[in-house]
């Protein structure tokens, strides 16, 4: 498989075409917007946090396939996790996408680990990271964030 096919693997294309947990929910307690103005990626993350547990996570926005798939998979992964666990996953994802990398990423991040292929396209790493930074911002009560 070429690097390009690894980047746009079926899993990514499927999440892009039919994103999970997409759209602003009726009820949410925490929200942040991730905006990469130069490339045009925009992701809103909506969390419903009860007793420090993320009961539901949704996202909305207009983004490239990498950003959409990353957000779709992230919202699935963090549901029913405590905010502490979610922040741990944020740190793990960031590490996976860094030069250092993350051992046994699949054990920690599940399906999300497939996005490691984005590392072959350095200009696109910021797209994959955007929803995670928005998650981090939402948990910490910041309104906006960017990865540019």
């Amino acid at each position, binding site marked *: 498989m070429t690097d*390009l096919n690894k980047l*746009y693997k079926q899993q990514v294309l499927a999440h892009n*075409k039919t994103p999970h947990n997409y759209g602003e929910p009726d009820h949410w307690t925490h929200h942040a917007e991730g905006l990469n*103005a130069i*490339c045009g990626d925009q992701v809103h993350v909506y969390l419903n946090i009860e007793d420090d547990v993320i009961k539901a996570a949704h996202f909305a926005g207009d983004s*490239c396939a*990498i950003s959409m798939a990353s957000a779709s998979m992230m919202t699935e992964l963090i549901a029913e996790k405590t905010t502490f666990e979610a922040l741990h996953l944020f740190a793990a994802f960031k590490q996976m996408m860094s030069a250092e990398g993350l051992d046994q990423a699949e054990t920690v991040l599940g399906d999300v680990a497939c996005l490691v292929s984005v590392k072959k396209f350095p200009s696109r790493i910021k797209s994959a990271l955007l929803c995670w930074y928005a998650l981090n911002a939402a948990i910490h009560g910041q309104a906006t964030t960017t990865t540019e």
Partner: protein
Amino acid sequence: MLREAFPCLHQQVNGKDLVYFDNAATAMRPQVVIDAVNDYYCHNNANIHRGVHCLSGRATDLYEQARGSLARLINAPSPDNLIFVRGCTEGVNLVAQTFVRERLQPGDEILISHLEHHSNIVPWQILCQQTGARLKVIPMNERGELVLDQLDELMTERTKFMSVIHVSNALGTINPVKELVAKAHAKDIPVMVDGAQATPHLKVDVQDIGCDFYTVSGHKMYGPTGSGVLYGKATHLESMPPYHGGGEMISKVTFEETVYNKVPAKFEAGTPNIAGGIGLGAAAEFILDVGIEAIAEREDVLKLYTEQALKTVKGLRILGEAAHKSPVFSFLIDGIHPHDIGTIIDHHGVAIRTGHHCTMPIFQFFDVPGSCRASLAFYNTEQEVDILVESLNQAKAMFS
């Protein structure tokens, strides 16, 4: 063939022959420009306008010859009408702060257009904050052309300056700048034209256009980055205060007072981008040698071919279809974000730009976050356009 004169075009990226369609971001440089920069550093390296020694004399001559070449390119009355600047951005800021600022009272108006690059919006917003003036905008239509019906109402007695882009970097629209200048001058409104995207593609004659100021960007017209010139009418340049204070722009300095140098040195404080200026002069000579008419003719053929070719891609929408435009194509493909298209076709060796192209208000008008932009130059080929179309179809297949 002239294409051979551009060394950077001849390479492979991602295992494919490079197809360079990002000319509106920055053009390639011909070998004569690279040689001019290289020769200055290798054989004539010295500061200008201040040494009695041989090299300084040579460097000064080359720099001033470059000013003369630029004056010929845009038909300025004299080389002294041209100030070397870093690019159009600096030219706009210079005029805003040294010519327009002192003319403004709170409530006065500055007129720009919906097609402006951020560099011809933000300096005016800063000026408005400094003076209490207001920014007004000439609207555009769905085709990406300026709507001139309301011009009489937009140009009021409070309008103290107008600044408009000659050729849109995002959509390619060529604006009727001569007509705009005539209408503004009828109401005593001075006008600046941002020519960043014009000099590489069109015959520019500042005296025919009649504008008060005109900006030229070096790197868009096959010259070095960080180079450019600002044209100004002599009476304006004489009356304007300096922009930057420092060396070179003075004729006498004591601790009590400073007597400024004559125009254009008055506006050229400090050691300038000497190599860049000399390289830009070589770029102007290159365009004069090839002939801007020949360049425009070739680009018209390429433009029509590209338009037809892009229209064969199902689901592709071109933004901006002005009757008069340069070979710039902003487009969207249903269901694929521009960023993904950019990455996929880069894998086929095709370089385009994706995003808002420093013209966010244009994309707010079309209600999209950005676009793909293929911007061509005369050295591009029909075969390269075919490769673009093939790579776009592959992107579509991938996302189908």
